[in-house]
């Protein structure tokens, strides 16, 4: 119990620190602008691709499939980058990781807390993208879907698995040099391709759709699309054939596996870094 309380305190303090680091350079209006512009620009890029390729407008279920997938993928991308990058930031830039590592707080809880601010920001960004799609582009969004058990449970499980994976990547950063700082973004890029964010997984070549079916994020995006834009779900026959309950069950199991795996990887890397004496090493290039 003491360990859990300590981890919770560490998480809370680190979350406050992360928010301070992310926001102390600008006023709230500027932060808000930046929070919205990046994801909105990325989404508009996809909207234009859709219009160029298909030109069928927002009533087309494929538009909703692509749009909603892109909106929620931004959370995955931001979480993987932000949490994994904490190690680089605190080790190479602020040189504070040695202070955390020599304190009794669990390092994994600290790392997750420190990245929480970016996760929350990305959720706000996703909300803005969806609102923009609904109000400006005519996306047939069902707001009631936001309160459906499938959406709420699916959202929570997906975010948990993203955090688990990000913690694992943060662990890898503990034993690698600074020039690997794009690891989070790189893994996010692979997941962008494989998890059916912008096209149905059936479109993946060379049998890669089998890989897609192993990823919790494939089911996560489906669990979010289905209550919000039910017709978009039909774009992927493979996923459409899965019932809500089964979808949640698969998501729960795969998220638990990824979360546990990420934590185990972090702990193994932390042990290795401590053993090799590189936990607070500056790599300088």
């Amino acid at each position, binding site marked *: 119990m003491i360990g859990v309380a300590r981890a919770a305190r560490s998480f809370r303090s680190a979350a406050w620190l992360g928010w301070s680091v992310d926001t*102390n*350079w*600008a*006023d709230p209006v*500027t932060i808000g602008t930046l929070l919205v512009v990046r994801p909105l620009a990325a989404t508009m890029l996809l909207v234009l691709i859709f219009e160029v390729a298909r030109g069928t407008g927002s009533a087309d279920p494929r538009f909703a499939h692509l749009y909603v997938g892109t909106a929620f993928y931004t959370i995955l991308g931001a979480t993987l980058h932000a949490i994994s990058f904490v190690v680089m930031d605190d080790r190479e830039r602020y040189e504070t990781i040695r202070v955390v590592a020599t304190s009794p707080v669990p390092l994994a809880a600290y790392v997750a807390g420190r990245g929480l601010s970016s996760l929350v920001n990305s959720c706000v960004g996703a909300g803005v993208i969806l609102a923009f799609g609904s109000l400006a582009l005519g996306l047939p969004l069902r707001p009631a879907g936001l309160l459906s058990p499938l959406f709420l449970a699916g959202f929570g499980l997906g975010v948990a698995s993203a955090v688990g994976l990000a913690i694992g990547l943060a662990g890898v950063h503990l034993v690698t*040099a*600074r*020039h690997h700082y794009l690891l989070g973004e790189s893994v996010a890029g692979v997941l962008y391709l494989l998890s059916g964010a912008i096209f149905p997984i059936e479109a993946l070549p060379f049998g890669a759709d089998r890989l897609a079916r192993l990823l919790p994020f494939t089911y996560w995006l489906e669990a979010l699309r289905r209550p919000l834009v039910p017709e978009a779900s039909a774009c992927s026959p493979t996923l459409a054939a899965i019932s809500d309950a089964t979808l949640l069950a698969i998501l729960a199991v795969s998220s638990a596996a990824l979360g546990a795996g990420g934590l185990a990887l972090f702990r193994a890397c932390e042990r290795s870094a401590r053993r090799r004496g590189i936990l607070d*090493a*500056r*790599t*300088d*290039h």
Partner: protein
Amino acid sequence: MHAIETEGLRRVFRRRRRGLFGSREDEGPAEVVALEGADLVVSEGETFGLLGPNGAGKTTLIKILATLLTPSTGRARVRGFDVESQPLEVRRRIALVSGGEQAGYGILTVREQLWVYTQFHGLPTREVMPRIDAALERFGLADRARSKLSKLSTGERQKMNVIRGFLLQPEVLILDEPTLGLDVSAARAVRVAVREWVREAPARSVLLTTHYMTEADELCDRVAFIHKGRLLACDTPDALKRRVSDRTTYRLETDAAGGPSGDGLLDGIPGVAATASTDPAAGRTRYVLSLADEGAIGEVVSRLSAGGVRIRSLRSERPTLEDVFLAATGEGLGDGA
């Protein structure tokens, strides 16, 4: 021509209230005076020491001379070139080495990194490579020449920084705490190298800041104290120490047991004031001698020897530069502002 010359140099740091796109900046006092009317002349061929506690203004002065910062008012010239209006000419003639410096590209080897630095000065590769190898040998880093920077210890890294200063063959070498992080033998090697480097060419000069008083005493022709942005005393180390006391103190210990004591033997020696205390348990008599002229110590020893007194120990006590700083400011060098 002077190596360095400053006139009424003043630097004020003003806090910015707004950053890029109106972002908030730190709260704090509106302005901080880091340097207040500094007048300084370092001559050609001179090794000049700048001593002061943390926050005294040493680094600010050095940054101005290295063209990294402009003065708020006043002027500074290096080899006759104005640091504000002729920075490129100044940069051609200086090398700045700071203690604890972590600069460099971790992916490069020590040898490569030193070569990259010489390229920033436009030096030809065929000339600098033998010099790099010789310098690495001299500072005991030859076996690390092909090690990546990221693998160096703090001391090895600092040795590399010092080597960089010499390699660039500047006319004015600015050393900011150059022996920070070095062990005793490495620090000694740096001091020897600085001395020899200055002697090699008459136009070379060194501006040194250090916390180590013995280092300043050993290396510097003149030193200046800086405190709260103001330059205080400036003179040769010996002259500064004489300002604290014009008399020399000696402590002398004689064997009081089983022989004659020194009572009365030292009376009447011109310029010598002696106080004695006897410790019967230890069988010793201890004298504190205050000499107006240091040469009188010979007469003291002669009289005691002639009186059959056995001298156990004799040592002089001179004021240190830290004593001088204490007398000038009322604060020790460690009392950072």
